[in-house]
């Protein structure tokens, strides 16, 4: 396997005599010699021995790098011209691939010039074999890739900028989302309260909302709802819904009246080709004095039924049938239900992001569904507000990316007397 520069010299092409003189003149005008074409080609040419020693190199490449012919030929290897990273890549990938395939093309590498600068290049190499199929030497063309590198740098910069903007959007979305939720839930004497908001996408503000707030005469108002759609337009409706509910409850705390008010406001504000509506549950909580616990009257406008997890370990939907979604019809029907929450009872409100999630374990992308949630609640009961919300959080975690839509949960629970908790 000892072939030297001689062999490469044998490779020189001689311009052949052309049959017609015109043709010859034309040809001469184009390229006076193949040698000249080799030396001054618009790309670098390089031939190396199989051990990498540079056997021949053209003027173009020498000029790019700032070397003289004598500096390199027979003295240095191709690898010597590369940056440290490039050398590593050359040894681990480029060389083996070349040996295996006999050709490697379009590999981006960086060459070191004598002045210390780096020249990004695209390298293509082929192995020249002798008549017996034995490899003799490696021929390499080197293309200046500075333009391409500049383009890539520009792409990278644009991408970085886009990522920064996306971060900024996420920050804005998170901030906007926070303004739609109470910073912390108020403390209701005699009640254990917990809530959770699951953000499905950091790119889009969701439309779920909830709140719990004091009303006059020891009563409390609470609501949880879901505005159709997502993004800024939905957030505007969410904001309007939240403030309307709070204000309406002060004016008349009757839950059906509160939702009726919201319906009128949304219906006036949004109709035509861009209807906006929400489904919402509004509850009026009143302590039951001597009897203990709370009475809660829930009004529902088309919202998934609340779950009632009783102290005795049973659980069921608290249906409010016939309630219509809020904001679409001039006089939506609003259904109400009243229950007594005794010690150990937990009421769980949720939005449909939970039941419409597609758990990974469900084959063919089936949704989680109301029945599955009811089974989950039955297994959970009896529970507390914080334990119920923690369990839903864990459940959402198991769904992972299967949760397409934001999900809000709000749980209230009348704690058992401390004596009962003792075994």
């Amino acid at each position, binding site marked *: 396997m000892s072939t030297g520069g001689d062999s490469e010299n044998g490779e020189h092409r001689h311009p052949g005599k052309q049959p017609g003189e015109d043709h010859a003149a034309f040809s001469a005008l184009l390229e006076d010699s193949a040698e000249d074409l080799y030396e001054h080609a618009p790309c670098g040419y390089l031939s190396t021995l199989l051990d990498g020693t540079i056997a021949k190199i053209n003027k173009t490449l020498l000029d790019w790098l700032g070397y003289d012919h004598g500096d390199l030929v027979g003295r240095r290897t191709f690898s010597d011209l590369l940056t440290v990273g490039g050398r590593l890549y050359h040894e681990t990938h480029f060389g083996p691939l070349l040996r295996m395939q006999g050709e490697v093309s379009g590999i981006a590498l960086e060459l070191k010039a004598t002045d210390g600068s780096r020249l990004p290049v695209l390298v293509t190499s082929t192995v020249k074999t002798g008549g017996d199929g034995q490899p003799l030497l490696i021929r390499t063309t080197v293309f200046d890739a500075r333009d391409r590198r500049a383009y890539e740098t520009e792409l990278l910069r644009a991408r970085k900028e886009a990522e920064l903007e996306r971060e900024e959007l996420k920050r804005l979305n998170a901030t906007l989302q926070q303004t739609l939720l109470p910073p912390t839930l108020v403390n209701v004497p005699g009640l254990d309260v917990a809530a959770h908001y699951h953000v499905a996408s950091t790119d889009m503000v969701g439309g779920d909302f909830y709140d719990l707030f004091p009303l006059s005469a020891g009563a409390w108002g609470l609501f949880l709802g879901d505005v159709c759609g997502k993004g800024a337009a939905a957030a505007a409706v969410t904001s309007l819904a939240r403030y309307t509910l709070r204000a309406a409850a002060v004016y008349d705390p009757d839950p059906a009246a509160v939702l009726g008010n919201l319906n009128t406001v949304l219906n006036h504000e949004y109709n035509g080709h861009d209807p906006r509506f929400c489904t919402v549950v509004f509850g009026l909580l009143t302590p039951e004095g001597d009897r203990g616990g709370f009475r809660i009257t829930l009004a529902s406008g*088309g919202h998934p039924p609340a779950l009632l997890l009783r102290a005795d370990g049973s659980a069921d939907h608290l249906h409010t049938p016939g309630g219509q979604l809020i904001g679409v019809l001039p006089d939506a029907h609003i259904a109400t239900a009243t229950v007594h929450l005794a010690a150990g009872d937990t009421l769980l409100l949720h939005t449909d992001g939970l039941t419409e999630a597609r758990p990974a374990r469900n084959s063919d992308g089936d949704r989680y569904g109301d029945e599955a949630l009811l089974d989950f609640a039955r297994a959970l009961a009896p529970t507390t507000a914080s334990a119920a919300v923690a369990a839903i959080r864990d459940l959402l975690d198991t769904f992972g990316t299967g949760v397409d839509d934001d999900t809000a949960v709000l749980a209230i629970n009348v704690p058992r007397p401390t004596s009962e908790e003792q075994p």
Partner: protein
Amino acid sequence: MTRLAVHTRTTPAGPVVELTGELDYDSSSQVRDLLPALALQDGQQLVVDMTGVTFCDSSGITALLAARNHALAARAGIALAAVPDRVSRIFQMVGLDQVFPTHPTAQAAEAAWTPPATRP
């Protein structure tokens, strides 16, 4: 990414929009974008054939409500045909079963339509 196929045909009673696939946030705009181009005459009926709808969320409901508003604005009616069980459960939950007349098939919806009496 979900896919929704939307196909529109015309009958003497009015246009029939056939939906196949998931009617959700990603796809509902396809239905809403189609509405302005629907030729709907006074007294006609817009039928949305839901035979192939596998899922409908709040955005899908929004699209159907936009269709309803569009029909009402044209002084036409709207009816849903072949609403799948799981979708009809959602409709019941949000109380829309009382808002959209439904028929077992698009044909039945067409048959139920009566041409408007000649107006003076």
